[in-house]
């Protein structure tokens, strides 16, 4: 029910008349009967000195209730009815001069009254329509406010989780760093990688991340895509859960390649390929990072955050095998997991 409903009886009456569409025939009968009834009443119970007075409320009521044309009809009919009740059959003009003058004056005044009553009805209808629109706008505003509140809560929740991830990355880096300057550099670079992953995720409302877009975003700063870094595989959408870890892993691999591997000279390149196959009816993802043309690789004496994080987190997020192989001709990093855990292949 509308909330703007007034308690005034006139408002209620107008509202009722606007809400109920009465057929024209009924209106005609209603106005005619009321006018005739008032005429009869006046003839029986009221002096002929006041022939028009009791018609005025009927005219106003008709204008308010049914609109302009019915108000004008009531006014004309009332003038005729009043004239009939005071007419003299012996008089060839039916009415005396003053009675004619009074009748014409009554007609003019009540036509004006009927017009005013109809204007009042129209104004009320316009007010009612505005009030409804206002109510609807208020409803939309309230809905928008509650959606905004929900979004804020969701954003806060997501932000806190991202902060917890950042906290973990920073703590893990510090835990395994040999000195503060290198830890500081590594933390900054890892935060940039997280930022790049966040950009890709945010573009899809944090619901998924396109594999190729993620590769271009994270690896682009490390080497020309398509020249030094060759990425090839079917269109794949990563789950948001593993996308951050995957971005960090790519960043670590690329940083390692730039320091010691294929991106540390002018000719080496990285081949990043992925494919989808089936094992026992289940879709599987195979991802291979292969460095070619770089200097001879020597396995590190101590495993730092990078390699530990890459294997550990991708095993956890992608629920599969993740292995790093320090081959002398180039590093190989392989992930073998259920496709479902990593993402979906785009149609």
């Amino acid at each position, binding site marked *: 029910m509308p909330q703007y409903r007034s308690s005034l009886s006139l408002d209620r009456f107008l509202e009722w008349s606007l809400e109920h569409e009465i057929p024209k025939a009924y209106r005609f009968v209603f106005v005619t009967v009321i006018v005739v009834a008032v005429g009869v009443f006046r003839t029986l119970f009221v002096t002929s000195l006041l022939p028009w007075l009791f018609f005025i409320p009927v005219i106003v009521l008709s204008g308010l209730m049914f609109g302009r044309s019915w108000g004008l009809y009531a006014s004309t009919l009332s003038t005729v009815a009043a004239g009939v009740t005071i007419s003299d059959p012996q008089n060839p003009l039916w009415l005396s001069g003053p009675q004619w003058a009074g009748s014409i004056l009554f007609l003019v005044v009540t036509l004006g009254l009927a017009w005013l009553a109809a204007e009042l009805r129209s104004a009320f209808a316009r007010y009612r329509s505005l009030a409804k629109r206002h109510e609807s706008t208020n409803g939309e505003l309230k809905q928008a406010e509650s959606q905004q509140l929900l979004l804020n809560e969701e954003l806060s929740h997501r932000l*806190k989780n991202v902060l917890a991830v950042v906290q973990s990355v920073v703590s893990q880096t510090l835990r395994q760093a040999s000195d503060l300057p290198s830890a500081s550099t590594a933390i900054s670079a890892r935060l940039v990688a997280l930022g790049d992953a966040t950009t890709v995720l945010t573009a899809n409302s944090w619901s998924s991340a396109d594999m190729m877009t993620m590769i271009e975003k994270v690896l682009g700063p490390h080497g020309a895509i398509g020249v030094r870094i060759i990425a090839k595989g079917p269109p794949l959408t990563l789950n948001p859960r593993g996308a951050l870890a995957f971005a960090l892993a790519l960043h670590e691999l690329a940083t390692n390649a730039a320091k010691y591997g294929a991106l540390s000279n002018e000719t080496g390149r990285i081949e990043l390929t992925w494919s989808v196959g089936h094992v026992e009816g289940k879709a599987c993802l195979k991802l291979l990072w292969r460095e070619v043309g770089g200097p001879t690789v020597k396995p590190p004496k101590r495993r730092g955050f990078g390699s530990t994080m890459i294997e550990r*987190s991708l095993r*956890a997020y992608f629920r599969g095998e993740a292995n790093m192989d320090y081959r002398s001709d180039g590093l190989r990093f392989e992930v073998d997991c259920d496709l479902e855990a990593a993402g979906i292949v785009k149609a």
Partner: protein
Amino acid sequence: MGQGKPINTSTILIVEDEAIIRFELTDYFQDAGYVVFEASDADEALSILEHETSVRVVLTDIQLPGSMDGLKLAHYVRDRYPPTVLLVTSGLAQLNADALPANSQFIAKPFDPARMLRQIDAMTRD
């Protein structure tokens, strides 16, 4: 009837689906002298609790994948293993205290690890 658990051990079960966060919590508690078990969802956590009777502290995230979220897990642990010290975490700013099981604490993410350790110590002493 709940099953009794020993209360003089420093063994913690960390239930967190975000692996990077879980790794850090694991390393942190190991450095603090805890024996740590880790699970990525409630089913894994329940399996560990079933087999590792030394678990004295359970730290669980609320948002977990699978059939049971962290709150349901916390209530289950409270009913099944009453002496367990329970810590419930989330990125949510606030959590209705009525939603938490008895004798448990809510810890908002990101964590203050030192404060978390103090809380566990205090709850273990109670």
